């Protein structure tokens, strides 16, 4: 991201921070969900966009985070903040194991293994009824207020700010990560893994690390979703969600961090608008997705910044 875009992003965050003063409660609900999904999609971008690790099972992170925070809030009386971050941490730790296994393979086999682990968790969520509530899921998840004046975060608006803070924090973390020496190695893996190994990098370690971070942040998104919606169910671990989040990343623009957040918002908007017109909204969205892949593989953000850059180039090369 070029420096010229930084002021723009700051303005966007300010606008989001002021949104509760202008938007009706119904819109705030949608916006909160969009930000949660944005966080989820951005976390996948670390793997998909920056490392070319194509996950077909990122719902595993979301669902695990959601179930973990839901369970903690329901059964331990843990305050909201601790439950949410604890669940994200747990997801990241589990992901070290998942990453270790999945990176035994590369390419399509890697993708299939991520899917397999998500399906495994999906099956567990059905069978382990005493913890997961089986097909009913976990319902009535409270937003338990905390001891240090964090009670404000449990209101509808307060929770929105919590989500916004998590998204901004996660964005800054990812931004620092992809621009660090670690991120340079990820780019190396993306462009030519064999050469990266030949240069002396143990690429598998880097891949496991990025899987862990991506899952932890995806888990954070899920951990926010459970107290947002008040429930966690098996759909949060279903492959459909894994596919949808991939679509959000691609439509928004992979390898940009910002793009996938836009992609998530766009996905929600389309789902909302199209489904009010037609039952078959998924079909129409599928067509939009195909159009993006064919005509704008750089995604929404790529289109937008491409325009900007072209304008600047034209100005720079002008007389």
């Amino acid at each position, binding site marked *: 991201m070029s420096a010229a875009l930084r002021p723009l992003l700051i303005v966007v965050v300010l606008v989001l921070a002021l949104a509760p003063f202008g938007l009706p409660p119904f819109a705030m609900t949608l916006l909160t969900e969009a930000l949660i999904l944005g966080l989820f999609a951005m976390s996948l971008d670390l793997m998909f966009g920056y490392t070319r690790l194509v996950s077909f099972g990122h719902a595993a992170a979301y669902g695990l985070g959601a179930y973990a925070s839901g369970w903690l809030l329901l059964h331990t009386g843990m305050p909201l903040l601790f439950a949410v971050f604890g669940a994200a941490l747990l997801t990241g730790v589990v992901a070290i194991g998942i990453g270790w296994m999945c990176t035994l393979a590369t390419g399509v086999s890697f993708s299939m293994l991520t899917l397999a682990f998500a399906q495994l968790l999906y099956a567990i969520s059905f069978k382990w009824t005493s913890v997961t509530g089986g097909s009913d899921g976990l319902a009535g998840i409270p937003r338990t207020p905390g001891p240090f004046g964090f009670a404000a975060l449990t209101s509808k608006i307060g929770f929105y700010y919590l989500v916004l803070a998590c998204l901004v924090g996660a964005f800054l973390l990812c931004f620092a990560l992809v621009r660090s020496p670690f991120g340079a190695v990820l780019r190396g893996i993306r462009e030519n893994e064999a050469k990266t190994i030949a*240069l*002396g990098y143990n690429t598998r370690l880097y891949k496991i690390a990025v899987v862990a971070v991506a899952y932890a942040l995806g888990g954070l998104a899920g951990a926010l979703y459970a107290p947002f919606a008040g429930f966690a169910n098996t759909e949060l671990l279903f492959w459909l969600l894994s596919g949808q989040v991939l679509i959000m990343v691609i439509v928004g623009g992979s390898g940009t961090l910002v793009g996938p957040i836009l992609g998530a918002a766009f996905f929600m908007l389309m789902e909302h608008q199209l489904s009010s017109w037609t039952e078959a909204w998924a079909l129409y969205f599928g067509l939009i997705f195909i159009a993006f892949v064919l005509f704008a593989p750089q995604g929404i953000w790529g289109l937008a910044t491409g325009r900007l850059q072209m304008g600047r180039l034209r100005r720079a090369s002008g007389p």
Partner: protein
Amino acid sequence: MHRAPDVALLDLDGVTRRYGALVALDQVAMRVEEGEVRAVIGPNGAGKTTLFNVITGTVKPTAGLIRFADQAITGLPSHQICRLGISRTFQITALFPEMSARENARLAAQARHPRRWQPFAGARIFKEAQALADAALEQLGLSGIADRPAGLLSHGDQRLLEVAMAMAQQPRVLLLDEPTQGLSVEETAQAVDTLARFLQASRMTVLLVEHDMEVVFRLAHRITVLHRGAVIADGAPDEVKADARVQDAYLGGLD
């Protein structure tokens, strides 16, 4: 401990690599002294690239022993071998096409940075790696094109960039697999001039695979000839040139 002067930096003994029934390397014994430029020549399929793969750990030898700087490295994973100080270039150009030449070389240098895993040391790692990278690019005359994406460089510059990347790692041994492969006559002449100057200045220990005999005779101190995986001659360029078996197997066959 004082090291006897005749101990080689790189020492191969009985190194064999089989692919099914095919013997790609057959009991190869070879000693490369520090500061030496050693050419490895042989017809297509002689096992030259396999030799590099086995030394760098990309491919495990079926049998034999490889020692580097008094340490057995046989069977170590390639990233560990690389870290001990062996860097290579590939016969088929291997770069990061979307990164600039500077970023390519910086990523190479970063691999040897002692703090590369340390969080919050990013700025320092980048700075120190970039300094090594820029020096290597300068050595190979690439400073002028350093900010261009590697994928858009001329083929000749890409070949030299690979050498610069290897050099940015400050290796103790440099393995060059046909650095002039696919270059036009003029490009080859230029690249060889650059390489000759650079080898003269750096006194780097080099293993060089090269098909162009003029290039070999110009750059190498010593030549090893492989034929069907086996070493059939090993010596100073003039000796090798005069060797009847080499004439038979290789030089004669080419002319």
